[in-house]
Each structure stands twice: as C-alpha cells, then as structure tokens.
C-alpha cells in the first residue's frame, strides 16, 4: 500500500515539476473548442446543438495528447521494469498511474467543460448532465487509453497507433456522454445514459487494470 502511495506521490511530483505535462491538455481542449466556433459562422445558434459533440471530442483529443507519455517516460528510464519486477501488484500500480493521469489531464477538462459550454451557447440548465457525464466518462478515457498505451509501450511507432486503437474502444462512452446532454436538450430523462456511463466506468475500473498489467508484462517478456 505504501508503495502505491509513493507511486501516486511520484506521479504528482513529476507532473508538478514539468508544468507542460498538466497545462497542455486543458489548453489544447480550450483551443480545439475555440477553433470549432471560429469554423462556424459568427453567433451561429446551431453551434449550441453541436456543443455536446464538440466538447466530448475535444476532451477525447486532449486526453489522447498525454496518453502516449503515460508509460513512455517510465519505460525510457527503467522505472517500468522496476514496477514489473517489484512485489507490488502491477495491476494496482497501473490503476494508480491511470488514476493520476485522470487527475492531471481529465479532471481539469471536467472543470473547464461548463465555461466552454457556455461559450458555445449551451444553456446553463444543461451544464449538469454535461459535467456529470464528463466526470463519469473521462476516467474511462484514462483507463482505456492506459490499456492501449500499455499495449503499444515498446513500439517505435506506438504514437501513431495509439489513437487508432483508442478511438473505437471509446465510442460507447462518447455516445452515452453526448447522449446525456442531447437528452437534456430535448427535455428527456438523462438518467439512462448516465447510468450506462457509470456502468462502463465500473467495468473499466475493475477489468482494465488487470488487462493493462498483462499487456505490460507481455511487452517486457
């Protein structure tokens, strides 16, 4: 347990010392969303109806941006091998790494979503389902992305492969996440898609750390 706490603290300390690590994803998110509104005609009321999709895709791209680094740096300096041979359960170590990835690059996006949604003309009544959906969905992105990052960790061109493998796996999350906001836009009950997201989150939290650990072991055999 103390090893996991040390790993968690190490992740946060590393991020604190390299500010670009945790400042880039939210900045990227803001820029992507802004570029979308530049692409539409000025004050287009249609933009609000596309806001859920824009915000979700923006969050997804921002999460992808930092995923490749999740294991790459640790692999380069040998930390990853130490983790694999150490007595600490690799699955829990993977869990801690993915969790800290979410804290550093997922949580800021959740917090930014409401102001950006307002910028796109999303009525404030829809902020609830948007933020709740992102709060449930972005951890899934970190864990699924962590799994794919573990699969591609030893590959020279893993960076190009990663988004191609991640995007199909997270389609359900985008559907239900953006679906919750759309349901609220139409005045429907939002609990259905949100419960689906919560179920997907439970599934990813419980299953994927084990599979990620298996992928890491496989890469180092």
């Amino acid at each position, binding site marked *: 347990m103390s090893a996991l706490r040390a790993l968690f603290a190490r992740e946060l300390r590393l991020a604190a010392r390299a500010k670009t690590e945790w400042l880039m994803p939210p900045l990227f998110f803001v820029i992507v969303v802004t570029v979308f509104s530049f692409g539409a005609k000025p004050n287009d009321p249609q933009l609000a109806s596309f806001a859920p999709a824009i915000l979700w895709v923006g969050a997804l791209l921002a999460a992808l941006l930092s995923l490749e680094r999740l294991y790459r740096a640790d692999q380069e300096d040998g930390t990853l091998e130490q983790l694999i041979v150490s007595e600490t359960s690799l699955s829990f170590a993977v869990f801690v790494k993915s969790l800290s990835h979410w804290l550093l690059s997922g949580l800021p996006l959740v917090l930014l979503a409401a102001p950006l949604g307002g910028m796109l003309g999303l009525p404030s009544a829809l902020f609830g389902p948007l933020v709740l959906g992102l709060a449930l969905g972005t951890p899934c992105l970190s864990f699924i992305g962590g*799994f794919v990052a573990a699969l591609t960790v030893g590959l020279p061109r893993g960076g190009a492969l990663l988004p191609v493998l991640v995007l199909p796996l997270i389609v359900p999350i985008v559907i239900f996440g953006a679906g919750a906001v759309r349901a609220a836009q139409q005045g429907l009950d939002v609990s259905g898609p949100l419960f689906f997201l919560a179920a997907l989150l439970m599934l990813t939290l419980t299953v994927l750390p084990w599979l990620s650990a298996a992928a890491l072991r*496989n890469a180092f055999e």
Partner: protein
Amino acid sequence: MFAVVSADALRIRLQHDVLKSQPPRPQRLPMSWTWFHRLASPPTFFGLAQRLAPWCAGFGGALLLLAWFGGLVLAPADYQQKDAFRIIYVHVPAAALSLSLYMAMAVCGVVALIWRMKLAECVLVAIAPVGASFTALALVTGMLWGKPMWGAYWVWDARLTSELVLLFLYLGVIGLNSAFEDPRTAARACALLAIVGFVNVPIVHYSVVWWNSLHQGSTILKLGKPNISADMAWPLYAGLLGSYLWSAHAVLRRTQNELLLRERNTRWVREIAAATEPGA
C-alpha cells in the same frame, strides 16, 4: 499473464510435494484430453488443416453458388422491395460472419493468453483479415441497399455505427499485429485487444433490440417461426452455411501460412518444403 505464472508455480509446488510424499506414479493424461493436446501441436494441426481445407472450400463454394443461384434467380421478388431485397443473400451471411469471426478471435485470444497456445495465436492472427473483409462487405452491401430503400447510403444509427466500430477493431488488431517485430508478443497484444473489443459484439447484435434503429430486426435467427417465406429462406440458409465453410477454409489456409512462417526453422516445415519442392 500473471495468472499463468502463478498456476505454473502452483503446479511445480504440487508436483514437488507429490514427489516428496509418494512413490512416483506413471503419468497419464486423461484420455478425453489427449486429442486436444495433439491438436495444439503445429504439425498435427497443419496436417489436419491440409485435409480439411479443400472440403471446406469445395462444399462452401458449391453452397455459395447454389445460394446465389437460388437467391438471384429462383426466389420470387419481394412484394414491396422488388428485386432489391436480393442483397440479403450476400449481406446477411457477411454480417453474421463478421460477428462470429470476432467471437472466434476473442475465444482464440483467451486460449492464447491462458494456455499460451501457439496455435491459438496463429488462428487469431489469421482470423483478423478474414473478419475485416466480411465486415467491410456487410457495410458496403448494406449501404448499396440503403440508398434505394432508406434514401441514404449511411445513417448514424446504432446497428450501422457499431458495425463500423467492429471494422475499426478488426483493423486495429491487424495494425497492432504488424507493428510488433516478435510474432508471439504481437499475437498476445492482439489477444488482449480482441478481448477488450469484445464488448462491442453484443452491442452490434442487440443494437436493433435495445435502440430504436432504422435497421430492421432479426428475421431469420429467431426461435419458432421465421418471418420469411420458405422459398426465400432456403438460399439464405445455404448462403450462411456456405459463407461459414468458405471462411473456415480461408482461416485454415491463413493459419497454415502463419504456422509455416513461424516454424520455418523446425524440422517438420523443412520436411514439407523438401517434399513439395519441384523436382523432388
């Protein structure tokens, strides 16, 4: 995988204990499982595939021709869709195969990871391109039918979108497999990806039930009385069986190639190579 490591360790420990406490007993595998172990050995499987593949190809090809003749010529035109409905004789088998092959691939992935069976890895890698082709065929035929019937090649609804995701998953497995240098590492990475992607299969299958989809519900794979008349149904069943056999043939041949490639330095492959060399 860690489960395997611990199971191995446990077995060694158990054997150790048995050796200490008891006089050695002649080791005997339970009879019912010997075929399984023998099948898993590459030369045995290669020989079996060599014998099976021509039959699969012959029967599958004949059934497919029969199905196309029956479906395109003999079956009556639909009262509403006229001749356009005949695309089901290609579309439905392709869609069924796209799901079945993914299922087979995921099962191979489980076997490859748990028992570290080399053969399962080869079959997994062999299935991916075949499955991707059937998925693409299902999508294309569906689109060609959708334009005159629905008025659009593509609509964003649950069945179509999840089938497209299935295609991406197949392509992901193919891409991941070709990215690694070591074929065993590659196949095991693909196995993990195939297992995670398996969540999509029930979504594709039940999408027409769970969501209000533009795509129609299942017509033939229904318990009890199917919603299709018998003279339209039999070519479809023949087409389904033919496609299964044909893809079995494709997978067997691809697996053989994969085995030959991986085992190229072993004696049994050299023997085959020497025997099939022209002039030998």
